[in-house]
């Protein structure tokens, strides 16, 4: 069960921004996924209120938008941390110990996968293969890629952002 408790009050300009993005896709329901991606780029996440505006503009039901948002792992309804941490758990990283690295991040940040630290600084997620298998195990923080991450190095990496 997904717990959605982020309540957002959209400002006038937010609604305008969403409308404009939808318009660049001709408000065409077929472009829903491309459109949601652009909007997530803009807001960082897709709270319920945003989805409602998207649905109204694209002429589809809110339930459908939500159905799409919950289907694709790229979409999130929770704001990500300032520094989103993604541990690659692709096969190559897995056989080179990605799980232990992930555990270490969980321990260090005291959050579970899919959560954000209380101060909003870090969020933790898993992804499947960034294609840098030569550097396995790989962790991405924002746009930066860390390769050959050993569990012992995790604290050090986090410290870079503190």
């Amino acid at each position: 069960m997904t717990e959605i408790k982020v309540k957002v009050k959209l400002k006038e300009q937010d609604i305008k921004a969403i409308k404009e993005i939808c318009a660049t896709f001709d408000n065409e329901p077929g472009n829903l996924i491309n459109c949601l991606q652009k909007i997530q780029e803009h807001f960082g996440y897709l709270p319920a209120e945003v989805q409602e505006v998207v649905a109204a503009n694209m002429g589809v039901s809110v339930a459908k938008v939500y159905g799409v948002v919950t289907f694709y792992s790229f979409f999130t309804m929770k704001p990500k941390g300032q520094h989103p941490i993604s541990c690659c758990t692709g096969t190559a990283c897995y056989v080179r110990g990605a799980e232990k690295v992930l555990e270490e991040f969980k321990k260090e940040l005291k959050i579970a996968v899919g959560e954000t630290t209380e101060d909003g600084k870090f969020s933790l997620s898993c992804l499947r293969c960034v294609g840098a298998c030569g550097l396995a195990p790989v962790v991405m923080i924002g746009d930066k890629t860390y390769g050959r991450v050993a569990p012992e190095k995790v604290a050090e990496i986090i410290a870079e952002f503190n």
Partner: protein
Amino acid sequence: MKNVSLTQFQLNKMALIDIKINGKEVKAEAGSTILEAAHTVGIEIPTLCYMNLHDVGIKNNPGGCRVCVVEVVGRKNLAPACVTEIMPGMEIKTNTIKVINARKTVLELILSDHPFDCLICAKNGKCQLQKLAQDCGVREIHFPGEQSTYKPDFSPSIIRNMDKCIMCRRCETMCNKVQTCGVLSGINRGFTAVVAPAFEQDLVDSPCTFCGQCLAVCPVGALTEVDNTPKVIRALADPTKTVIVQTAPAVRVALGEEFGLPAGTRVTGKMVAALRSIGFDKVYDTDFAADLTIMEEGTELLDRLTKFLNGDKNVKLPLLTSCCPGWVNFFEHQFPDMRDIPSSAKSPQQMFGAIAKTYMADKLGVKREDLVVVSVMPCVAKKFESQREEFKVNGNPDVDYSISTRELALLIKQTIGDIKDLQDEDFDRLMGESTGAAVIFGNTGGVIEAACRTAYEIFTGKTLEKVEFEQLRGFEGVRAGKIDFNGLEINIGIAHGLGNARKLLEDIREGKSHFHAIEVMACPGGCIGGGGQPLHHGDSSILKARAAAIYEEDESKTIRKSHENKEVQQLYAEFLGKPMSEKAHHLLHTEYFDRKKKTIE
């Protein structure tokens, strides 16, 4: 409007091809599925998610449950019979150990993610999953494991217990394709995938119309109606309360099915006898209120028409009927800008309630608070309607409890067991008399036909020679008819199923509608196909039998025009004055609300 896909479907089916089923040479129509082809030779392949609504032209065949898999020679895996088209020379085996084992395993899997409370489930005995498990001889579940759980959702009409959902997606099809309400969608994925409203919000917070078509097709107990029978039983047992009951027209032609009678059996008299036997103080007829509705709505139509003919540019036409609570919810959510077009007349259920708790309470000498009004409806949206704030006086609702046809059957079973052997009885008087016009409210097109019978005579001053307006009858989703009002041609539109209603509303919004009056019923078939009726599982022959029974009941009545109802006339004379009088307006008319979410504007 002919359904195009259906005609194409029929065309494709012209040619016959040779196939083999279980070793037997069979000729089957090209373009048909294995399931259909097998059926023609008497081989039934079990299905679960599959649902074919022939008359609506909609199939729900996601091929998701995989219960209908069969062997096709030359194919490496099993084929789902419901979506696999037959090919010339195809050799199909439905009886091999591989098929039987796969089907059983798939069922075990589905059961392993399904609560085991069958004995106390609302669908016990009517559950298609239960029946399949029984038919396929599942005696053990080899794969116990985690079960998916979701937040239960209780609305005034519908209970969603998605722990029981098997992802057949029938409800989603009804909600989106047939009714176009867009409330439900598949959400999440994998093991946590389920059908739900946006953000898994409760139905009351969603644009749900409570038409109940979703629960009418749910093969399991995931979607059920709120059971009001315990409250009714408690009221009946309370010596301080006078409990009266009204029964809608569509109930009497379907109730018998719950007791094993063939579809279309009219059980009006037995139903009345049963209700009295259960202990209701008075057994009245919603049909009485239906006649009353025609008086009000018919007058409103004539009023608008007259204004229109006099050149009033502000008059709103077409007039839309407002008897159907699912439909009312629909336009309040989806077309709030057009909420001044429907008739302001309340539905028969609520007219009955309003009169019962005023006029009738006085007649019976009972205080409003001590009078309990129960309604028996083919509908689950009626539950929601009865709880609307505008239909309460100081918190006391005009209709206290609305129960469905299925709940009535349950109530009967709990109290007196059966109806089959009861002697027919008649309704109590003074809100029990009704005309044939009121009876046909149960069918699609019935309300507008009834309105025409009255409006014609009042408008033209002439007597109708033939009261049946055949052109308004039928099962097509959108129908149109022209009635000659003494040289004035009145254009009538009819839609049943909210998807069809949407088309007519969009035409009106775009100024393309040429209709003067439109009847809309939320459920396909009208009330006889309501969400509270005995489950028909998409079998349209059942709906047709019920519809025929409604028309028979109409024909059996001596009075067939609402304005000739003596009791209604008496009510106006003694209490209301005339149709659309101030008192009538206060008690029998309502207003509509904009329920569209405001955050979006």
